[in-house]
Each structure stands twice: as C-alpha cells, then as structure tokens.
C-alpha cells in the first residue's frame, strides 16, 4: 500500500496559514515566496508581450543548477544576481505588495476568493477535498496528477492528463488552437503489454510528440475501430480544452521531476493566456532555493511549487507523496481566479 492509499479519502491537511483574504496571498506560515523585485519593468507591460519578460525569468532557472554551474540553461553561463529582500517569504519579513515585481503589485481584493467554478466565494480551506481537486487540470508530464485526481473522485475530461508532450510543442499547439491534434495522420496505435497479461493500445501522437494512454485493450475492438475512437476523443477533448482555456476556470498543473526551466514552463502558460486569463502551477522536486511544500509566485497567474516526491514514469499510478493536497491548497490560495483575471484586464488595457 502506498502512503497515498492509506490516506486518500482524508488527507489530514495540517499546514497552517492559507491566504484567503485577497491578493497577493501572504500566509501566516510563510510558505509563499515572491519573485525578485524588478523595478525596471513598466507597470502596464502586457503580461506576456515583451522580450524583457522572458529575460527576467531566466535567472530562477540558473539558480536551480547553481550559481557556478558550468552550463546554465539554454547552454549559457549567466551570473545570478544577488538576492534581494524580496527573496524572503512573505511570512518572514512582511514584504509589502509594492516590493513585488510591478505586475504583481495588484491591490488586495476586498472580495473573498471565488470557488473553482462560478459558485459562491470561498477559500481553499472551505472547499471539500473533491472541490479542491476539481479546481485543477493536469497538463502532464505524466499520469501522476490525473491519476491522483481520479482516485480522489475527479476524473476530468482532459486532453493532456495522460500525456507527456514536450513543453515547446505544447506551447506552440495551444497558441495555435490545437490544429490537427485529432487528425488520424498523426495518430498511431501500438500494443503496450500490461502487468496482468493484457495489452493496451498506446497512442503515439506524432504531432504532440508523446505517447498517450487510450485504456483500450488490444483485442477488445479491432484496431481500426480503436483508432476511430481515439481520433474522436481527440476531437472532443481538444474542443473542450480550448473552451476551458477560454473560460479560465481551472489551474493547470504541470509536474516534472526533471525540473525544466521555469521560463519553458511559463511559455505554456503564455500559450494558455492567449485564450484567457489562465493560471498554471509548475511542480517539481525540491531545489536549493525552493523547499518541499513551498510555493513561489512568478506572476499573477503562474506559480512554482516543490514537492517531496514525484512518481517515476514507469509507475505513474503509484502516488508516492501525501503532499499534493497541501500544494494544491496553497496554489489555490496563491492564484485566485478573480485577481488573476483582473491583472490581465489591467495589462490588456494598458498595452
């Protein structure tokens, strides 16, 4: 029995200090970290429209591999700037909003946070476990989070929850509205043996550059029928994905133990934001500057979190950690839907 199985119906959240009183969140427990202040950025710069934006976010990636890394991200060597007071957690030094990066300096909302959907306003502590899970959607890079949701009672109709598409491909396709993802010329089924002696048709998606589960057993239907079904799924799920992205109802979760550069993950967020004021949570293993259980907000709609364990690809349905609920609750508090949407409106108005 995995640790998760022992505790799957009652997560026993114990972390104190969720921010439920507006934006930006500042937890009593000091779990939130803020990005480096950068007073040179114009207040009204469109959130994802300037080259300076991507440049600014290169530094956190370098810090992950160490200041003196012989090979920084993208094969470059860059010196990490000295940390500022803004590198400390909210709880440690009570940094004000104005110390945040300019686009973070959104006035605290007097309104309580909305629920994941359009229901009554509520904070993460007021949500049931299922309601909280329902506020998120997996973007990969394996089945872990989708499986975690499913076991918790949320089996979302989601395009990417069983996939591991590369970030650059994801960003490009999402930006362009997922053209061709349901085109059979890009779909191929191959039998994948399972432990119980059966085999599943695994979808090799040449456009997404990813294998995807179909959960169709070899022999249960002819391969041509299975391919038809898969193509239809892609049609419907891509349609739904784009509608969801437009409505920006959920927080997209991308987890990756290989810890790709934050800016690469943010490009996917940027792509999502071409459809609506979306929010995204990037989860990776602990780093020297982000301990397990901590969340760092990079942007009004984007946060990075560290978790103690992530499942390996060969056993993605075995949840190794009990930390997911805590991470989700913090992320839900850190990325309030209304405040993120408002920050986008401000950016659009000013750009």
């Amino acid at each position, binding site marked *: 029995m995995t640790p998760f199985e022992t505790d799957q119906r009652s997560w026993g959240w114990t972390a104190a200090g969720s921010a439920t009183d507006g934006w930006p969140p500042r937890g009593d427990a000091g779990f939130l970290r803020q990005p480096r202040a950068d007073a040179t950025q114009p207040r009204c710069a469109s959130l994802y429209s300037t080259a300076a934006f991507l440049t600014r976010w290169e530094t956190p990636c370098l810090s992950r591999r160490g200041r003196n890394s012989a090979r920084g991200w993208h094969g470059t060597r860059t010196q990490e700037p000295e940390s500022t007071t803004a590198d400390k957690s909210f709880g440690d030094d009570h940094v004000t909003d104005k110390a945040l990066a300019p686009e973070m300096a959104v006035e605290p909302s007097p309104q309580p946070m909305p629920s994941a959907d359009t229901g009554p306003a509520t904070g993460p502590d007021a949500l049931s476990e299922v309601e909280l899970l329902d506020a998120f959607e997996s973007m990969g890079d394996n089945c872990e989070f989708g499986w975690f949701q499913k076991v918790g009672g949320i089996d979302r109709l989601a395009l990417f929850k069983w996939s591991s598409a590369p970030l650059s491909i994801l960003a490009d396709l999402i930006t362009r509205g997922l053209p061709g993802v349901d085109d059979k010329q890009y779909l191929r089924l191959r039998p994948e043996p399972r432990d119980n002696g059966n085999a599943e048709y695994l979808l090799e998606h040449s456009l997404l550059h990813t294998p995807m589960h179909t959960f169709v057993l070899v022999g249960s239907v002819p391969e041509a029928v299975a391919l038809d079904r898969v193509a239809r799924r892609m049609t*419907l799920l891509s349609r*739904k994905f784009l509608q969801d992205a437009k409505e920006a109802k959920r927080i997209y979760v991308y987890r990756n133990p290989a810890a790709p550069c934050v800016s690469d993950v943010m490009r996917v967020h940027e792509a999502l934001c071409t459809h609506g004021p979306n929010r995204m949570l990037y989860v990776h293993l602990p780093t020297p500057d982000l301990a397990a259980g901590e969340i760092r907000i990079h942007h009004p709609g984007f946060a990075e979190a560290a978790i103690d364990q992530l499942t390996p690809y060969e056993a993605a349905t075995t949840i190794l950690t009990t930390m997911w609920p805590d991470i989700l609750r913090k992320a839900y508090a850190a990325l309030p839907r209304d405040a993120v949407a408002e920050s986008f409106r401000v950016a659009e108005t000013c750009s």
Partner: protein
Amino acid sequence: MSSTDASADVFAELATIIRRVLNRDVELSLSTEAADVAGWDSHATVEIIFEIEERYGFQFSNNEMEEVDGIPNLLRLVATHTAAAQAAQ
C-alpha cells in the same frame, strides 16, 4: 407519442450507446450513475458524449460535458437540447 414514451425511447437509445461504448451488456436504469458502472470513466464519457452528439445532432457545452455523470443527467441534457431544437423549428 407521450413524453413518457419519448423519455423511454431516449433511455433505450442512451443505454444502447453506453453499452456499445463500454463494449458489454451492463445493467442500466433511469437512476444509474457513471460511478456505479465499472469502466464508465472519463474516456468512456468522452465517447458517450460524442455518440450522443452524433445521434441527436447537437453539441454539449463545456459545462454540460462536465455534468455527464450518469443516466439522469444525460436524460435531462438530451431532453433540454431536443426541446430547444423543437422550439427553434
């Protein structure tokens, strides 16, 4: 045809679709929820939605797709769309 007959017909058609998607003869009733039926997961739901859209000629909205969690809601959604289509004629 009475509304009861129509509803029974819709249920029969939905049951046929669901059994075809699940590829087996599952027991279904007017109150069956997806969680009660082994194999009726999100993948099956996607295919059921697709087949219903093809059969009845309408598209579920995003929110409606997320409401597809069993026979009762399916019946309601089909009835809603069917009524809207009839009203538009």
